[in-house]
């Protein structure tokens, strides 16, 4: 790449600035839409990822179990690879919780003097193990342990988590896949259509004895620069919309405050644009045969 090629590319961009600007903006729009799509999928996914946090298993202990046995049982369960957190709920805690949940109707419990509720462990699992088959196996193991009376977990909740997560993941991947393929195609065809009218110029350069790379170089530079500036524009638009605009709205609509924007994604847009512009130009020019 000589200074000539660089000057030539800049001159080319400038000579037909309006149509080049249009192409650049097309690339920008494509990248911006992809970014929005990525963010939507990313956020849906991160919400789905949080669902397993809400899942817990309750292990009811036999009445009259000794403190030492309770402690031993808790240690055994805690050491299991499935377990992220285990907490002990005494008979008194259980009664208090029940009263709390009955709220205004709590007076129905007033006549009771001996506490009929069992002590229990509440177990939270590691994310990866929140899976119907695994949980069933794990629950079986615990139920067989000495001192355990019964075990309870939301089987329905579990399978709906599963279904929502895999549904969201599949829909997200399909959507993203279609979006990426679509946007790449549109960017590529923008560059291709743009360079189509240069066929005559390419022909003349060939007849003058220019080699393939001499001919390609300014076009590759033009494509790369357009892609880069398109990416930059998408970055600025993304920054403007997400960091400024959404921050403004989130005070009135709190849900928006939870929207996550990984800045690495935005920052990589100019590079992505450059890559698309460069490869678009390369493909658009095709093989240059003399």
């Amino acid at each position, binding site marked *: 790449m000589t*200074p000539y090629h660089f000057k030539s590319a800049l001159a080319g961009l400038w*000579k037909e600035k309006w149509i080049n600007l249009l192409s650049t903006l097309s690339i920008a729009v494509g990248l911006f839409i992809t970014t929005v799509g990525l963010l939507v999928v990313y956020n849906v996914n991160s919400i789905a990822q949080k669902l397993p946090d809400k899942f817990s298993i309750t292990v009811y202990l036999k009445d009259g179990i000794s403190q030492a046995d309770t402690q031993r049982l808790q240690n055994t369960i805690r050491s299991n690879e499935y377990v992220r957190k285990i907490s002990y709920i005494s008979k008194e805690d259980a009664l208090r919780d029940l009263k709390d949940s009955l709220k205004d109707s709590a007076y129905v419990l007033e006549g009771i003097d001996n506490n009929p509720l069992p002590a229990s462990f509440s177990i939270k699992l590691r994310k990866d193990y929140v899976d119907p088959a695994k949980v069933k196996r794990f629950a079986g193991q615990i139920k067989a342990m000495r001192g355990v009376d019964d075990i309870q977990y939301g089987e329905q909740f579990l399978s709906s988590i599963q279904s929502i997560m895999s549904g969201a993941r599949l829909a997200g991947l399909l959507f993203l896949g279609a979006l990426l393929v679509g946007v790449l195609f549109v960017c590529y065809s923008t560059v291709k259509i743009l360079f189509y009218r240069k066929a005559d110029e390419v022909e003349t350069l060939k*007849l*003058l004895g220019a080699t393939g790379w001499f001919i390609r170089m300014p076009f590759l530079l033009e494509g790369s620069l357009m892609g880069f500036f398109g990416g930059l524009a998408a970055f600025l638009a993304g920054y403007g919309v997400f960091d400024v605009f959404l921050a403004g709205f989130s005070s009135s609509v709190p849900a928006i405050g939870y929207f996550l924007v990984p800045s690495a994604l935005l920052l990589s847009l100019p590079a992505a644009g450059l890559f698309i512009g460069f490869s678009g130009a390369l493909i658009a020019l095709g093989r240059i045969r*003399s």
Partner: protein
Amino acid sequence: MIHFEGVSKVYEGQTALANATFSVERGEMLFITGPSGAGKSTLLKLIYHAVAPEEGSITINGQRTDSMRARHIPALRRNIGVVFQDFRLLSGRTIYENVALAMRIRDAAEAQVKAQVMETLKMVGLRHKADAYPDALSGGEQQRVVIARAIVADPIIVLADEPTGNLDPVTAAGIMRIFKDINSRGTTIVIATHNKDLYANTGRRVLRLDSGAIAGEDRG
């Protein structure tokens, strides 16, 4: 320098050149003439390999070019300066850049490019138009830019296709003087033209084409 042996070129059923055999010596200036559609441009295109022949052999500067590999063609073309009948100026570049292109393709140093381009533009009387774009030039001015581009890099062969079709007699005579000048310094020149004035009384060889066949040869 240039040797055609039984060369034929057919475009989709239309024979443009049939069984042509002729030679051009190093340092010669040859004229090609003949009615419209006789095959003059086709003959020149075969030399710079814009089209390939269906039959026969073409030798340029000691090298067989008729069935040349695509990757060797650019090097061949860099030995040849062409005045295209349809000009082929790049509309997006200034006159200076259009002419400079012929040197940049040959990797000339920037200082040399500048000196040689300006000198050549002066020779064709267009130094003052260096920064204009082709669209802003008259037909004859454009034609002179094409001539400048063909000769600026000192190629060993110059092919000129109707180089004075848009020029008045005085300017045309000036261009012919330039051709004679570079020819006298050793450049082989082939000129296709209808303009008898260009070759009359020069004593140069004139090849007559008719309907794709070489119909005769005489001296101007």
